[in-house]
């Protein structure tokens, strides 16, 4: 497969693994958080853990938009979808995300809600055009990468004068969440978790560029490497982070130079800032309320804002008290530290958000890596 196989080459991987081993100071721990679920998935799927020295540990961050969506927002969507005049369009990953009391969009669909899985925002416009008698609502989720397509869709609806279309906006931002993790008391004060650097998501940076991380690297003194999602990208980013740590640098470096620059996609940023504005607060599953981390539609676009249009009320739902997703998302705990992991919480019956999408830390470990737990137990 062109443009993919080149970044999965075993020989180059072995070379990089060797360079990483040579770079690793055995006296030093290297704890890097890969923010994005796409990275978590790549690490697990290609078995990268097996190729890193023991003192290099990857902490799986909160960058899976499905995982961080709070149960209350799912409940809000379900409540809306149960209205007979509504067609709710969603990305497939959202179908099984647990709301409160075991509810999910998949179950709501079985009970009669008209919920359609879509692959792109263009599909939503088509559904709206084909069903003029229904209200078509797009359940928009995702980070900076998926926000521009939502903006384009709103523009298109405007141009086509679609009167039956709106967006339930749940778009969130990467830098405020990273900042929130570093400012959380267990990391900043108690020092329970040390994070020595971050792997930043390349797809987000194709939009926002690398510049937004500069303040962050400076302020917190942590290196950031923006990396692609192929396994070789990951290995190279890890090596770059190790070099920064060893040389006491904390800079923003760009591993994904094939698509990312400092300023990002100006056109996309412009579209997004035309249509969206910051919310004062947005709730993240596992992180709680994070200031200025979510987007909503500007007042000028209120007629496309499902929350306004259908007078949707914010619902708050507490997570299962035994669920450790919050601590896992902040890198404080590992999936196996959770009592629910692999017992009542599996990809078939996810209790917490990390088990829902294959990009979640728990699902990735369960699906690809749990054999290592048994190997380790046997070894000890």
């Amino acid at each position, binding site marked *: 497969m062109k443009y993919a196989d080149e970044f999965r080459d*075993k020989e180059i991987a072995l070379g990089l693994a060797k360079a990483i081993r040579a770079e690793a100071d055995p006296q030093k721990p290297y704890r890097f958080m890969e923010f994005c679920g796409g990275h978590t998935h790549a690490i697990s799927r290609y078995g990268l*853990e097996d190729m890193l020295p023991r003192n290099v540990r990857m902490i799986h961050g909160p960058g899976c938009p*499905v995982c961080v969506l709070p149960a209350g927002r799912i409940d809000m969507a379900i409540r809306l979808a149960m209205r007979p005049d509504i067609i709710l369009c969603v990305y497939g*990953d959202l179908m099984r995300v647990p709301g409160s009391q075991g509810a999910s969009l998949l179950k709501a669909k079985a009970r009669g809600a008209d919920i359609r899985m879509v692959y792109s925002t263009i*599909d939503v416009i088509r559904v709206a055009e084909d069903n003029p008698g229904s209200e078509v609502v797009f359940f928009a989720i995702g980070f900076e990468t998926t926000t521009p397509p939502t903006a384009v869709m709103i523009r298109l609806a405007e141009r086509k004068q679609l009167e039956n279309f709106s967006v339930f906006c749940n778009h969130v931002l990467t830098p405020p969440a990273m900042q929130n993790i570093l400012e959380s008391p267990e990391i900043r004060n108690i020092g329970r978790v040390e994070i020595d650097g971050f792997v930043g998501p390349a797809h987000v940076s194709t939009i926002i560029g690398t510049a937004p991380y500069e303040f962050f690297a400076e302020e917190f003194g942590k290196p950031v490497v923006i990396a692609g999602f192929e396994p070789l990208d990951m290995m190279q980013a890890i090596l770059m982070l190790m070099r920064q740590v060893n040389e006491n640098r904390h800079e923003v470096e760009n591993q994904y130079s094939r698509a990312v620059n400092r300023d990002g996609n100006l056109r996309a940023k412009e579209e997004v800032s035309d249509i969206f504005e910051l919310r004062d607060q947005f709730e993240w599953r596992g992180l709680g309320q994070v200031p200025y981390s979510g987007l909503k539609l500007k007042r000028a676009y209120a007629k496309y804002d499902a929350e306004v249009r259908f007078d949707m009320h914010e619902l708050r739902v507490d997570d299962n008290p035994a669920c450790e997703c919050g601590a896992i998302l902040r890198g404080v705990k590992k999936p196996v530290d959770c009592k629910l992991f692999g017992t009542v919480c599996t990809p078939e019956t996810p209790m917490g958000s990390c088990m829902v999408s294959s990009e979640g830390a728990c699902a990735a470990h369960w699906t690809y890596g749990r054999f290592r737990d048994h190997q380790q137990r046997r070894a000890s």
Partner: protein
Amino acid sequence: MKAYQRKLDIRNGCVDLSHGSGGRAMAQLISGLFHEAFGNEWLARGNDQSAFDVGAGRMVMTTDGYVVSPLFFPGGNIGSLAVHGTVNDIAMAGARPLYLSASFIIEEGFRFADLKLIAESMGEAARDAGVHIITGDTKVVERGKADGLFISTAGVGVVPHGLDLSAENARAGDRVLISGTLGDHGVAIMSKRQNLAFETEIVSDSAALNDLVAKMVEAGGRGIRLMRDPTRGGLAATLNEIARQSDLGFHLREEAIPVKPGVAAACELLGLDPLHVANEGKLVAIVAPELAGAVLAAMRAHPLGRDAAEIGEAVADDHHFVQMATSFGGGRIVDWLSGEQLPRIC
């Protein structure tokens, strides 16, 4: 005086409720369309059942339902798929498939022309596989009560004495053989789903495997522990199922697993794993190590096994893990597919 009956207007007509009501219209549909397509001595006798002789050996029986959407896809349609699927279920026992039944649940308004095409490809698939469709049934339901057409089948075959393929036969050290590239059928279907405007040249691998199986049994005999066709849930589901039933684990080598570049690219785009995608013309065989070479050679000599490969081996493992050395150099589990096969969004 013989009652006049207008001929079926195959080109423009469609099925209505009278074609399922037991009257003349139904008789006309059955004789004019299905008998024509399946043409054999058993159907010609027009009984409610068919009697047949069985040779020496144990009988195997299977049943299956077909609800594929779309009904027509690159490389086949629901009719050929129904024959291939049923034949393969029988063949996986090492058996020679003999007779099939076919029951049609048709939605009012279904076009005769489509029904004819489907029946004809069933007839053709049956002839190619050396089996006969010897009994059937037709029901018509109101518009909206079925998605065009559903087909249920049953099949019987005979397995030679001394051959008993079953998961509990597998032993640590046995080799895992696969008859060809993975994921072709699932990707061909997905590329045609209406909400997925995705153009690809991938053609379904839908095929009857009984002849390939016969050649393998000839080469490997009782060295073949068991065979399965990795349909829904793909190779991953099949091997996890075998691991559990045989109380073993598996070690696979990703590099050895054949996947067409187009299928790999489509899966990449849709966020799917080819190991989870359905096949309709492939088989997995667990074979004793000393006979693996001979069986693999027999597979490769057959047109349906040209891309056959040895992809791993069975190992002792209480946890029944299917593990894989990734082509990148790490290790991972190949787990069951969880839930429906849904794409990742970013």
